């Protein structure tokens, strides 16, 4: 575990607070799913919060983020307003994707958040292309691409790693290894489970890190991101983490034991960090409660906003199949 020596109180509280924001928002999402306010597929990130929270802090506003369908946490800590995220899950037009994408397809231009991609591995080539554009236009930006252990089996992962390395592109490959791809354990999906070795076969520097330790994820991602920013070409970080909840709301979880889940829950990234901060005298009960209160308040605001949201008129159904006569907004080049 990375040390607390240099950690400021403020920084510590931000990290804990962000993890709590994700946790509380997603607990609410699960509740709202049962209440049928949210529909379709809902993939919760609960248990993995330290990854997105640590990683996002290593990125700058001008960087780009490409994520998967398990991206609520990434969107939230990247800066997409909770209101817009929740409204999206409600299918309201005030949602970040107008209610057209739902849980799996969160998009946001202000924070350069490029989805919300629900084809496993499908977002990886996009990240390569964004990094290529930056390189060709001489912009010093990083494109961070999140994907799971399951995605590593897809051909697109392989083709993209090779392209990024061959062309020395500023891509930060963030592999969230939660040990399962849906119901398939990594040992049943990968002949070589040490994913860092994959990166090596493309000459891509690889790091692996305890994904339950938010200080470690932040520090590792920052080093990797700086290496990319410094012109070091693509880097790969494997975050070792675990999904506490079912894959989606339809998953009976036949493929793993209650004991295994329980053991991992003992390494809950939030509780671990909370304890460490308390022990180090960096967190008082009051401060803790304040963070919880802030998270709760944000969730409430988000829910109220979503509830108050409106439905996109069906007349708009065919709008944006192609751009409006005035081209759709583009991220500044």
């Amino acid at each position, binding site marked *: 575990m990375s040390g607390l020596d240099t950690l400021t109180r403020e920084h510590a509280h931000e990290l804990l607070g962000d993890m709590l924001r994700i946790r509380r928002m997603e607990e609410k999402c699960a509740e709202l799913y049962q209440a049928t306010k949210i*529909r*379709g*597929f809902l993939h919760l990130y609960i248990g993995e919060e330290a990854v997105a929270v640590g990683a996002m802090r290593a990125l700058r506003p001008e960087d780009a983020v490409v994520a998967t369908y398990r991206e609520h946490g990434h969107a939230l800590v990247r800066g997409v307003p909770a209101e817009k995220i929740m409204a999206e899950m409600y*299918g*309201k037009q005030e949602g970040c994707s107008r*209610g*057209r*994408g*739902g849980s*799996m*397809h969160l998009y946001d231009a202000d924070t350069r958040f490029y989805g919300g*991609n*629900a*084809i*496993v*591995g*499908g977002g990886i080539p996009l990240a390569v292309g964004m990094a290529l554009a930056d390189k060709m236009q001489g912009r010093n930006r990083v494109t961070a691409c999140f994907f799971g252990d*399951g*995605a590593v*089996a*897809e*051909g697109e992962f392989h083709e993209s790693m090779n392209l990024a390395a061959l062309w020395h592109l500023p891509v930060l490959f963030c592999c969230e290894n939660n040990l399962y*791809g*849906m*119901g*398939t354990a990594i040992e*049943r*999906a*990968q002949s070589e489970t040490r994913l860092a070795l994959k990166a090596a076969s493309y000459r891509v520097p690889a790091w692996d890190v305890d994904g339950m330790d938010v200080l470690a994820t932040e520090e590792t991602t920052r080093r990797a991101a700086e290496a990319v920013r410094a012109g070091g070409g693509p880097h790969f970080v494997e975050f070792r983490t675990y999904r506490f909840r079912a894959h989606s709301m339809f*998953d*009976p979880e*036949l*493929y793993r034991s209650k004991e295994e889940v329980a053991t991992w829950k003992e390494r809950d990234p939030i509780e671990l960090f909370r304890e460490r901060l308390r022990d180090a005298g960096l967190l008082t009960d009051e401060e803790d409660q304040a963070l919880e209160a802030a998270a709760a308040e944000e969730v409430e605001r988000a829910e109220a906003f979503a509830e108050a949201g409106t*439905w*996109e008129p*069906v007349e708009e*159904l*065919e709008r944006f*199949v192609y751009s409006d006569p005035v081209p759709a907004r583009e991220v500044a080049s």
Partner: protein
Amino acid sequence: MTVATPNRPPAAAASERRTTTYREAVREAIRAAMRADERVFLMGEDVGRYGGCYAVSMGLLEEFGEERIRDTPLSESAFVGAGIGAAMVGMRPIVEIMTVNFSLLALDQILNTAATVLHMSGGLFNVPLVIRIATGGGRQLAAQHSHSLEGWYAHIPGIKVLAPGSVEDAGGMLAPALADPDPVLIFENALLYNHDGPAPDPEHPVDIASAVVRRPGSDVSLFTYGGSLHKTLEAAETLEQEGISAEVVDLRVLRPLDSETLLSSVARTHRLVVVDEGWKSGGIAAEVLARVVEHGLYDLDAAPERVCSAEVPLPYAKHMEEAALPSAEKIVAAARKVVGARG
């Protein structure tokens, strides 16, 4: 008026048979096929330990073991290609692709190899492969999990494309598909898995060559298949009450298309509506209209209509998705229009 039916002994009347679900019917068909022939195995993402994304294969791992109920990594192109290779050397694989959108990752193997190798090799190597693919919208899964590309696949020579809309066909089509020497794609509309209906009759395997009249009628023909079958039957009921007698024909087999049954229906009713959950332009409904105008132009008393999905990536929001999909109301409206049109 004669009702076109597949020319085989009539199956035991549906009423005499136990009811089951579409999901159960598929599962039982897989089970029966695997018991009957050790060359048959099921391969795909999460078909084993997870029990199948839509719980179709739940319980099969326990009976047949992991060699024959084979979980694969996320590698659509490779495991579909592996199914082709295994089929070429004597196995009878059933490959499951979780959702039709993901099948695009395997389309090179399907079109450039599975559909091609028999002809390209001068008849040397056939590919007795079955690929099952979940298809269709209506579940708020948005634009990367909801499309209906089965009619589009029907463009490809060398494969057969089945789209069971009834519980009987869902279970009954697997055995003949496995017996077929060539690649057969079976598209299962995921919204149907919970439907129940009369179980397949083992004594009378479904034929996978012909369309079937689900409901005789005289004023207008409603052609459809798969996920739209029930909406269309519902529309026919409504039309009945308005005094419009609609004939509902279930295409069932999208390739090769059973033109004969379709043309003879139009020759009886002189009016046509085609209902298809796929996108309109260049979908299976277009092919149906093309065949009718080529071979039955003078049977038409009115311009036919297509009730298809709006040409959009399916949106998440319920009201928007519903607006994009065919519905009984839309079918009724289209039928009224063609019946009302000048004759």
